[in-house]
């Protein structure tokens, strides 16, 4: 137990939490926008995977990490826009079309990797680009005792925190974001006041794909420097869970994603301490189930309270 406490309160552990949380934060922010726009994106996983793959391949080909990033973001966003096209224009069921796109991403990326490398499992034989770490920008930080290793995160990790604020401002402080949430709240009402529902939902899905893609690029060009088959490993779905655990708020989603990251990092540590990792790994999923129930109950209480107030004002 003491050993465990020492591990959890170490600088290395905090650094690990930030490292493993980053892709979940980014994908969850994307999922949040899609959920608030009324078109929850189940294909976050697919966008991440496609972006991770395209990022590595283009960075190898062009020898530029930046071009890799752009290619990854472009292709992951494209996948989300295909989902939007099928759902909004071809009237495909949002969930089923997303399931199909996840399958397409999983099979398609392996296919492409095989074409390029002749290997079906990973691109580890290629020398991929990597997104810069803080150390590369401010070389001095490694000299700082203790906090140096914590601060030396990938720039995409810093981007995840900045983007949380940006998403919050976008959703609650800009007309576009407020329109987007109005569409998610009640599409008919939004339409009746002249908001273009289809455009808003295209925007919601496109942005969700863009943010998830950043998470995907981080996985293959930040966390490691290669693409491996199905390397997202369900993070896109965990991100969806983080939205509910975070009560559909940007800050809540960020905290929820960090909780998932902490549980993952803890599972790795406990594995070294001979505690069954399988049990530790279930913690975030149980937390999500409970959060889902709590969120649903709170929502219902609110609705009931609102109805009661409405009745009272009418009788008064």
């Amino acid at each position, binding site marked *: 137990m003491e050993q465990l406490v020492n591990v959890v309160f170490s600088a290395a552990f905090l650094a690990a939490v930030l490292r493993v949380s980053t892709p979940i934060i980014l994908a969850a922010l994307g999922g949040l926008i899609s959920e608030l726009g009324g078109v929850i994106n189940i294909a976050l996983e697919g966008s991440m995977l496609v972006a991770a793959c395209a990022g590595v391949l283009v960075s190898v080909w062009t020898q530029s990490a930046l071009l890799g990033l752009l290619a990854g973001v472009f292709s992951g966003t494209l996948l989300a826009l295909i989902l939007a096209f099928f759902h909004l224009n071809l009237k495909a069921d949002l969930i089923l*079309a997303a399931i199909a*796109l996840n399958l397409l991403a999983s*099979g398609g990326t392996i296919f492409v990797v095989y074409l390029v490398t002749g290997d079906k499992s990973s691109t580890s034989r290629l020398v991929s680009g990597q997104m810069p770490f803080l150390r590369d920008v401010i070389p001095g930080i490694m000299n700082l005792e203790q906090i140096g290793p914590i601060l030396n995160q990938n720039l995409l990790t810093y981007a995840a925190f900045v983007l949380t604020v940006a998403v919050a401002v976008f959703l609650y402080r800009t007309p576009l974001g407020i329109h987007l949430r109005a569409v998610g709240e009640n599409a008919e009402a939004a339409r009746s006041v002249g908001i273009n529902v289809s455009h808003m939902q295209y925007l919601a899905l496109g942005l969700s794909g863009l943010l998830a893609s950043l998470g995907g690029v981080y996985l293959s060009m930040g966390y490691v420097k290669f693409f491996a088959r199905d390397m997202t490993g369900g993070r896109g779905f965990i991100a969806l869970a983080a939205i509910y655990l975070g009560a559909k708020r940007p800050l809540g989603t960020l905290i929820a994603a960090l909780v998932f990251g902490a549980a993952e990092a803890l599972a790795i540590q406990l594995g070294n301490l001979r505690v069954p990792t399988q049990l530790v790994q*279930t913690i975030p999923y*149980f937390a999500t189930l409970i959060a889902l129930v709590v969120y649903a109950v709170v929502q219902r209480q609110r609705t009931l309270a609102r109805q009661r107030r409405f009745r009272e004002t009418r009788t008064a």
Partner: protein
Amino acid sequence: MQSAAPISFDRAAERKAVQDERRRSSLIDLGVTLATIVAALLLGFIVIWLLGKNPIQAYEALLTGPLTRMGRAGRWLEVATNLILVGLSVAIPFRARQFSLGAQGQMVVGAIMGALVAIYLPLPPVIGVLVPVAVAMASSFLLGLLPGLMKAYLNANEIVSTLMLNAIVLRLYDFVLTYFLKPAGSSTTRSLPVQPTARLATFSDIFPGLDLGRFNLGVIFVVLSIVGVWLLLERMPFGYAIRTIGANENFARYGGINTKRTIALSFAAGGAVAALAGMHLLMGVHNRLFLDIVGNIGWDGITVALLARNNPLLVPISGLFYAYLLVGGDRVEQQVQVGSELVQVIQAVIILMITAQVLGDWIRARRAHGRRIADSG
């Protein structure tokens, strides 16, 4: 508007007209489905050709592979047994427009709860099969009921809850298998074999000289499930309630249907059928538990149910077809090395095209338009 048509009170004629219309509509669906499959296969053909491989050779392997040897045909039927069972299980909640993605976890829970009985409890023949199956079905029923209750009474998103439950169940399965069921000193993570009386005999055992691989008596589960699910959905009040909710939940509620209870039970009923797939894998195919026993069957079952438009009588056809593609894909693997991924891509394209309702609706609209012109002229 068909304003020219006189109002008719001839019940028999009306019913016939409705049935004709329904038949035409399902013919259109069938046509669209077949066209989709052909288009997806064509896409795969072009991809292989672009790879610089021989697409004709690859497609020969894909389309004739499962029939080239008896053992491969057996493998095809064995895979189809699984897919049909999962397809039927998924079709029940899908029919109520509930996206339960929990089949994967339900199969695993069924397999492990059934295995506890089937491995450690010696029972006489027949009972040795029935008791584990009953335990498995009851466990998976309860696992299905949980997200069902959460959705029906709390409006908690079923996609997230079923995916979370799948993740939890898979890790608990790993835990129980590694720490309790793995015999001491064994190097591979797998359980002891099930009791001899808990085995579903393979057809190769029953008819010596006939090599149908591991295709086994689990096919009885399939026959019973097809009949059972069909009766449930098409001939029982519960099925009527499910279908009405699927068509319009508000209408169902105003019509006096207990929508909450029906929705919750639709998840649970699907779970009970999914357990049969788990038991087929345990008692018929592998005879013991190991880590990745269910593979990708949960997702494949969704494709099968969709191809059959959640119609229990069509699920066997789509299950056989899809299993054929999977086994053929393994054969292509030897020709172009990426057979299974290719099948996955084809699978994805098929689902995407089928979910795009526009095509069928467009044909229907054209026909209605044509009829109006005929009526007015």
